[in-house]
């Protein structure tokens, strides 16, 4: 048992209180633009943590979170839109029963988004976990594409390429930060439980894990379903944040963003994923200047749209070559590490060892 457990819990609660206070003031004082960045940070932190559960912790390289985001976003948007609105939006084919009659509160739609997404995770899991390694990556990527193509073609369910417009903006800072906190808490607990141990064992050596009696198929499935559940809710929150969704929003590009985040944070580290989500989301905004016209000395550089993505993809390649561990590796943030770090600093650099 950790002797500092009480202290650490108190510190964690204090940290949450500080963040809550910051959010409280941001909610009333910050500009819309700043609030949108904070919302994105929180949603992407949660998505990265859930994606990291399957990719980092379990070591199953899925490339399909965009599928679950799409499923979640469509499920919750279709549930919160009023029947009248749906009738007006679906101009080519009317929306099918029962979607044309029901309307649910926001929280119900989010739970439904998570559940439907998790169900799809279960169904996809059967073929996906028949294969390993890079084949698994391609199969999940394929599912992501299939979901997008299906969304484009099922006119009477998703409104096809026209997408859904006029979704009410229910998502606010409290929803997103609450979701991020819940995801970190739940996934964190899962990783530290005996299930988490089994998942890590699968990452290190699947055959050995099987040999010591771990049912690798169902453990991988568990991680996949939990990951899909949270991704689905994240998709629902995203839909009610940007209020317009269409299949083109859920391309592989979204998965690529999440991939950069979890690689930067360190594959397998929950706290690393949160940290990197904040860094990448904030960095994406901070880097906007590279796409604007610039004047360096006598040189006039016109705006170059798309330059940020060049930087991010280069970052991913360079990280793989020079810093494969990311920021945290597979370690986690802990107060004990912070305190021992402080003590080392107090003792002076000479005695650090």
């Amino acid at each position, binding site marked *: 048992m950790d002797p500092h457990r009480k202290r650490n819990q108190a510190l964690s609660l204090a940290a949450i209180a500080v963040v809550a206070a910051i959010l409280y003031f941001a909610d009333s004082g910050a500009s819309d633009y700043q609030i949108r960045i904070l919302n994105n940070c929180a949603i992407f932190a949660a998505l990265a943590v859930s994606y990291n559960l399957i990719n980092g912790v379990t070591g199953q390289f899925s490339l399909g979170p965009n599928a679950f985001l799409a499923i979640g976003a469509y499920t919750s948007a279709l549930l919160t839109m009023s029947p009248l609105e749906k009738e007006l939006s679906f101009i080519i084919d009317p929306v099918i029963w029962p979607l044309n009659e029901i309307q649910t509160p926001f929280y119900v739609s989010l739970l439904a988004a998570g559940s439907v997404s998790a169900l799809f995770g279960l169904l996809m899991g059967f*073929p996906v976990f028949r294969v390993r*390694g890079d084949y698994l990556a391609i199969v999940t990527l394929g*599912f992501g*594409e299939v979901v997008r193509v299906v969304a484009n073609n099922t006119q009477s369910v998703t409104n096809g390429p026209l997408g859904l417009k006029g979704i009410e903006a229910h998502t606010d800072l409290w929803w997103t930060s609450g979701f991020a906190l819940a995801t970190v808490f739940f996934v964190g607990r899962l990783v530290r439980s005996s299930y988490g141990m089994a998942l890590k064992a699968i990452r290190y050596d699947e055959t050995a894990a099987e040999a010591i009696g771990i049912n690798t198929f169902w453990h991988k499935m568990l991680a996949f379903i939990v990951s899909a559940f949270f991704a689905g809710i994240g998709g629902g929150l995203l839909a009610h944040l940007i209020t317009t969704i269409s299949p083109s929003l859920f391309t592989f590009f979204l998965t690529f963003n999440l991939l950069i985040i979890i690689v930067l944070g360190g594959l397998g580290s929950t706290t690393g994923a949160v940290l990197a989500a904040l860094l990448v989301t904030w960095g994406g905004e901070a880097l906007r200047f590279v796409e604007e016209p610039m004047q360096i000395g006598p040189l006039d550089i016109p705006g170059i749209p798309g330059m940020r*993505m060049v930087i991010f993809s280069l970052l*991913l390649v360079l990280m793989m070559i020079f810093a494969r561990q990311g920021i945290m590796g597979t370690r986690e943030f802990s107060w004990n590490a912070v305190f021992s770090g402080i003590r080392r600093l107090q003792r002076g650099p000479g005695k650090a060892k």
Partner: protein
Amino acid sequence: MDFSFLAQQIINGISLGGLYGLIAVGYTLVYGILRLINFAHGDIMMIGCYFAFYGIFMFSLPWWASFLLAVILTAAAGILIDIGAYRPVRNAPRISALITAIGVSFLLENLGLVLFSGRPKAFYRPEFLSEIREIAGVRILDLNIWSFVLTLVLLGVILFIIHDTRTGRAMRCIAYDMETTKLMGVDVNRIIALTFAIGSAAAAAGGIMWAMRYPQINPLMGIIPGLKAFVAAVLGGIGNVTGAMLGGLLLGIIEILLVALRPDMAGYRDAIAFAILILILLFRPTGLMGQKLPD
């Protein structure tokens, strides 16, 4: 449904599938040797098309010279990508190499968007290839006939390199056991770079024929043919060059037949390849002609 209709669709399928096959050869060569899915392969094909485009429109080269130069330059680009991105992660876990490949793919696409702009550009198609001839009630574009002939010639050349040259023997050795091949005094890095060069050249040739078919190019044009070519490679048995070509032809025919027989399903065209991929991995993971099990 009469005979000539079916024959027409199968001919269309073959001419599309031949291109999938030619692009798939590059995947299968690299995967066979390195066990790396070269995610950037479709984007290398796109680069090849832009080389050809700029050769004609900026340097006013004759089309054949521009196409030839584009294939050579793309081969060089393939070598550069191998040296710059893949060689440093060669001894890293396979997933790291895969992430690198995804990064390279996005890098090429976004560099393409920045350098060439996202607006599609019209691609050159020589006059004499634009004629449509009718053979026994089946209409064929001259371009498709020549493309198919050229594809078969290139396939023959690649098969010759692999089976009848020292370089090819070294490639097959590396695929079998890289460490031992090193011990036998083979310059493994050089052979792998050459493999990338051959694969990229094939992709450029396939890409240029692809671009003449539609006839336009854009920086994201490589994604879909790239993914489908990968499926073709798996379908044929990854690591097997002839299999990749057969897989490509089969995929092309299935796709065209689906669209022709069920026009209402045409929107699902791009999903068909993945459905096939999933079925293949479930029921016959070695593909049609492969021997080794994946993983």
